[in-house]
């Protein structure tokens, strides 16, 4: 049924550290790899070796530049995937019941066998977290690697989403955001974790940690260091300069 659960006891999700992310796209690739070989229809590529290659991805890294008034501009790498919202608009619009939010852990999933590929859930998501597969014509989205996190055939350290497992910078964290004592919840509390587009009323579970304040120089007069010569010399050199000018 595509009504949302009243509440979920556990809220599994990601905490993404925008201060630490180096924009290497390793999470994008590991996500594509795991989710092509495992749960559901593979993530297809179209025209992979042609002039206009494109593909289905569940996680993508944007890079933004923030221009600040009192400090140098800042580059922020920004990984984006499904936020597993508490008030997920993509779930309630589904006409077939293919989209659902799990009561036990809050993961938003698509039952691909029931998906008619109408695309309405992708329209309803403000974050662009859902993509229709170009070959299979069913809706694909982040599963929070539901086939890894409970998988007892994997070594324990691998029982987390592929993107988290692979991140070389340690910018991605996975855990229960309903438990205030979990490491991810404490990280959110400590670093001021934020929601994306809170005005859309989606109540996302995933949180983003803002960049930490940078060190600033006491008197950053960099411009004077770049100046090739003093504008007007004074004293003896000034007199010489003016005298030579007059000759």
């Amino acid at each position, binding site marked *: 049924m595509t009504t949302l659960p009243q509440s979920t006891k556990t809220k599994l999700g990601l905490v993404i550290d925008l201060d630490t992310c180096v924009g290497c796209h390793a999470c994008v690739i590991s996500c594509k790899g795991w989710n092509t070989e495992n749960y559901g229809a593979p993530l297809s590529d179209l025209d992979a070796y042609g002039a206009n290659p494109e593909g289905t991805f569940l996680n993508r890294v944007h890079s*933004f530049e923030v221009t600040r008034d009192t400090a140098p501009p800042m580059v922020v790498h920004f990984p984006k995937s499904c936020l597993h919202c508490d008030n997920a608009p993509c779930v309630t*619009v589904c006409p077939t019941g293919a989209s659902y939010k799990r009561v036990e852990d809050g993961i938003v999933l698509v039952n691909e066998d029931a998906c008619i590929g109408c695309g309405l859930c992708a329209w309803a998501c403000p974050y662009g977290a859902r993509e229709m597969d170009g070959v299979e014509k069913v809706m694909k989205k982040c599963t929070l690697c539901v086939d890894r996190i409970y998988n007892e055939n994997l070594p324990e350290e691998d029982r987390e989403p592929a993107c988290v497992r692979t991140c070389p910078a340690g910018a991605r964290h996975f855990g229960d955001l309903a438990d205030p004592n979990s490491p991810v919840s404490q990280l959110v509390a400590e670093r001021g974790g934020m929601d994306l587009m809170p005005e859309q009323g989606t109540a996302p579970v995933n949180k983003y940690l803002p960049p930490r304040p940078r060190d600033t120089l006491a008197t950053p007069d960099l411009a004077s260091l770049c100046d090739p010569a003093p504008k007007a010399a004074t004293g003896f050199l000034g007199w010489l300069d003016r005298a030579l000018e007059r000759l």
Partner: protein
Amino acid sequence: MHPAPSLILFTVLSGAGFGLLIWLGIGLRAPTGLAAFLLFGMGYALAGAGLLASAFHLGHPERALLAFTQWRSSWLSREAVLATATLATMAPHAASSVFAAVPMPVFGWLGAALALATVFATAMIYTQIRAVPRWHHWSTPPVFVFASLAAGALLVGRTGLAFGLLLALAIAMIAHWVAGDRQFARAGSTMGSATGLGALGQVRLLEPPHSGQNYLLREMVHVIGRKHVYKLRLIALGLGALLPALLLLLPASYVGFGLALLSHLTGLLAQRWLFFAEAEHVVGLYYGKR
């Protein structure tokens, strides 16, 4: 949003078909025999063609029956249920009018109510989407409802009613554009709120996540269509509502009615194209475009 031809045809054709069935259902015109066959036939054909066109929009039309199951939460499912219920409920009234020359008002009125609800449900599919601020406004359903009622009134040939409804449609279109132009700003979503970095300063896209196209950009970041917005609005308003209303003021003739109907449907196609092409999805903010 991408203006998919299947969706434009579906909303225009089925809207006209259900509008016709509404007026036939309440007996505004009570044809019998061949006339009933033609009019009810046209209503069923238009509504049916629209539904068929919408099925072409699906990735997996073979599973379409599942779309009847989630009417408790989904407007798209409600639309499917209501459309089917309309066609089924109206059938005794239509068959009895055609073959026995005896209308069955109970089925007619019930069918008309269901047809009106179907058109409203179609509009709500778009209106409910908060991520498309232009659609997420009370002014969206009146455009769909008045367009459907006006086309129906033209098809049953009621001059006065059609005239009034065309003017109502004109006002509804203008209201939808005027309100819609302010909706994105009112929704309050910016690149700052989308990235959460707005408090730090001015945010701009430095590098997109991919150099090529993708589903999101194709489906939701359709920028091309907005170049001729004002010309298209004039075409939609002129051909869709004002010109057919003027044609109705001329002495009644089949040619006049035919031209009014043709003009109305052409204008509505332009209006529906704009309805999609003009609508900006907030996901565009992640790509630095709208």
